[in-house]
């Protein structure tokens, strides 16, 4: 904290009192001229100190908010993108003059983003997804063009941004469920409440998976294991396929875990889940 006016003032007066040549200046009157002058000097010094102090905190704040160019920062910038707005000249902030809060919120079309290092040196892979009807979905080609132009403008000079905006990876589940015949019937319906608890649990599990999160088969088994009426969960085969050169490739086997190429999975159907006793 900067020193108060009184502290500085007292310091000056103490120095005057200790000085053998200034013994004449011994008035204790509050309005003695020498005290007044000392006071004025003290105020000026105090003002300067205040400014130094303020500037220090200002600089610390700027340093704290400095755009680091680390991967999480790119993710933050991706989520900040506003479709249909222009950037302020020579800046990475959007020009929001005259726009309402609702407009600004609805123009933020990227709801999910994840950023990784690419395979080649100096490439940053940004996986993005929007939402349509409450479900994750890729953004349109036109929107993607805007996003690319935006990144060209805000990226660090020399970095390469590779934007991945694909349809979800398709997940093929072939599961054998050993059921308790007292609770589940042969189609997997709960005898007491109806509905298919296993499929509900799988859907829940997919929702809990974070964007660009690893699908771990063991966690899926754990999730299904706790359902009432399920005795053993036997994952016969779990495959996934993703977009390569514009169309889905052949599904490949997932042995332990897999990170989706597009950032998220979509379950094709539940027809390969069989219930045995």
């Amino acid at each position: 904290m900067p020193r108060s006016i009184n502290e500085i003032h007292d310091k000056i007066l103490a120095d005057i009192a200790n000085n053998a040549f200034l013994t004449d200046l011994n008035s204790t009157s509050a309005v003695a001229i020498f005290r007044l002058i000392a006071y004025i000097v003290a105020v000026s010094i105090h003002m300067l100190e205040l400014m130094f102090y303020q500037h220090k905190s200002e600089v610390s704040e700027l340093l704290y908010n400095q755009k680091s160019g680390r991967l999480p920062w790119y993710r933050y910038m991706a989520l900040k993108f506003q479709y249909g707005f222009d950037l302020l000249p020579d800046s990475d902030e959007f020009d929001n003059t005259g726009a309402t809060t609702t407009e600004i919120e609805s123009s933020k079309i990227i709801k999910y983003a994840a950023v990784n290092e690419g395979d080649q040196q100096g490439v940053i892979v940004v996986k993005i997804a929007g939402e349509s009807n409450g479900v994750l979905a890729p953004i349109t080609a036109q929107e993607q063009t805007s996003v690319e132009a935006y990144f060209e403008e805000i990226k660090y000079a020399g970095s390469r941004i590779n934007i991945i905006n694909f349809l979800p990876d398709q997940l093929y589940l072939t599961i054998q469920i050993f059921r308790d015949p007292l609770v589940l019937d042969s189609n997997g319906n709960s005898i007491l409440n109806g509905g298919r608890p296993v499929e509900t649990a799988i859907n829940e599990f997919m929702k809990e998976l974070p964007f660009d999160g690893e699908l771990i088969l063991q966690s899926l088994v754990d999730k299904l294991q706790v359902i009432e009426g399920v005795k053993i969960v036997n994952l016969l085969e779990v495959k996934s396929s993703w977009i390569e050169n514009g169309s889905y490739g052949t599904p490949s086997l997932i042995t332990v875990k897999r990170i989706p190429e597009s950032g998220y999975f979509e379950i094709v159907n539940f027809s390969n889940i069989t219930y045995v006793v």
Partner: protein
Amino acid sequence: MWYKLDVYRLGLLLLPVNLRKQKLFAYIKALLLPVNDLYDLWANNRSDNIYKLKHNGQVCYLRKSLNDEFDTTLRRIYIGNGNKYTRQYIYTRAEQKPKFLGKVYLRSRTDYADTGLDFIVYVPTNIVDTRLYELEAWIDSYKEGVKRYKIEKI
């Protein structure tokens, strides 16, 4: 604004009205002169610090700071990406691997992905000719550490 201060005026205002005489004020001014000098130094330093902190190696800010410094009115400097061509290899006769060569261009080694540049700064010729070293120092101080660049004349 909080960072604007007129030290002399402050001194005058702190004097009781009946003491605001020329002689006393002149004395006070003399006392406050070093404080005022210090304030001037600090004010300049502050604006420099803030400018440096607000600009970094992002394309938009690097371009802005370069234009602010070197091309204030016309603002012609801009930044492009480096080329990333892949190398094409041909084989010797002993290797017995014929390869059909389509069109092959000769390029400078800076245009290839593995040895190449990350970005190119396009600068008007007269600026490059007169202030090249300044320009390089400026870019070096703002760009990201490992990125390689070159300056192209336009």
